[in-house]
């Protein structure tokens, strides 16, 4: 069983590393990730939301829908722990 797990891990690792062939080098300012959407965030965030911290602007407003579900995830974690551990008092 352990050999099978090791083979699966090795295969996944090789496929992952094979995939990194086409990536831009680390820290390269011309990489696609730094050219397509994020420059607009950096330039427009302060003008459109008056919030100097661009990460909070994206978190709260541009991608606020994600953060709403994020709060629901942490809420579910607290609730699931209560459901699993607490014995009913009634």
């Amino acid at each position: 069983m352990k050999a099978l797990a090791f083979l699966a891990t090795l295969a996944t690792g090789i496929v992952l590393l094979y995939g990194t062939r086409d990536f831009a080098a680390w820290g390269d300012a011309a990489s696609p990730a730094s050219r397509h959407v994020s420059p607009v965030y950096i330039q427009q965030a302060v003008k459109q939301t008056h919030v100097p911290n661009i990460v909070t602007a994206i978190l709260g407003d541009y991608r606020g829908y994600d953060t709403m579900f994020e709060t629901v995830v942490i809420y579910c974690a607290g609730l699931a722990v209560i459901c699993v551990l607490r014995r009913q008092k009634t």
Partner: protein
Amino acid sequence: MKLLQERTRDRLAGEDLIVRTAVRLLVPFIQLFGLYVIVHGHYSPGGGFQGGVILGSSFILLALAFDLRTSLRFLSVRVNAVLSNVGVLIYTGVALLCALAGGLFLDYSALDRILPLGPVAWRSMGIFLVELGVGIAVMCIMASLFWDLGSGGEMDEGL
């Protein structure tokens, strides 16, 4: 779980005085700093999640240095449950309010129709309200997670 609690109880005899007084002095400032992190999410690194965890950790520190009952004295289980609901309801409530005020879901500038502050100012205010809701929810849930995991659900005498 019981064996663990006996061992922690007899260890408390000697050197807890230093720890307890230090914690008694520290906790208010930790909570003040947590509030600062939530409120200053706009201007400095931080925001709802980070500030909420700092506030939650102040209650965890109380439970560690003293005992679970002291921590519960400051934030009881019932208040904790209600506050975590209030925190999440603030977020979804603001989101729904924007939709009901005629704009799109989560569009804070739509709130301008209710209280005219200017659409861009409302976006900044909307982010602040939302961060506040997240901070409250994360504070309560972090504390309740520790209490439950620490005491195995009995909420009697944690670690």
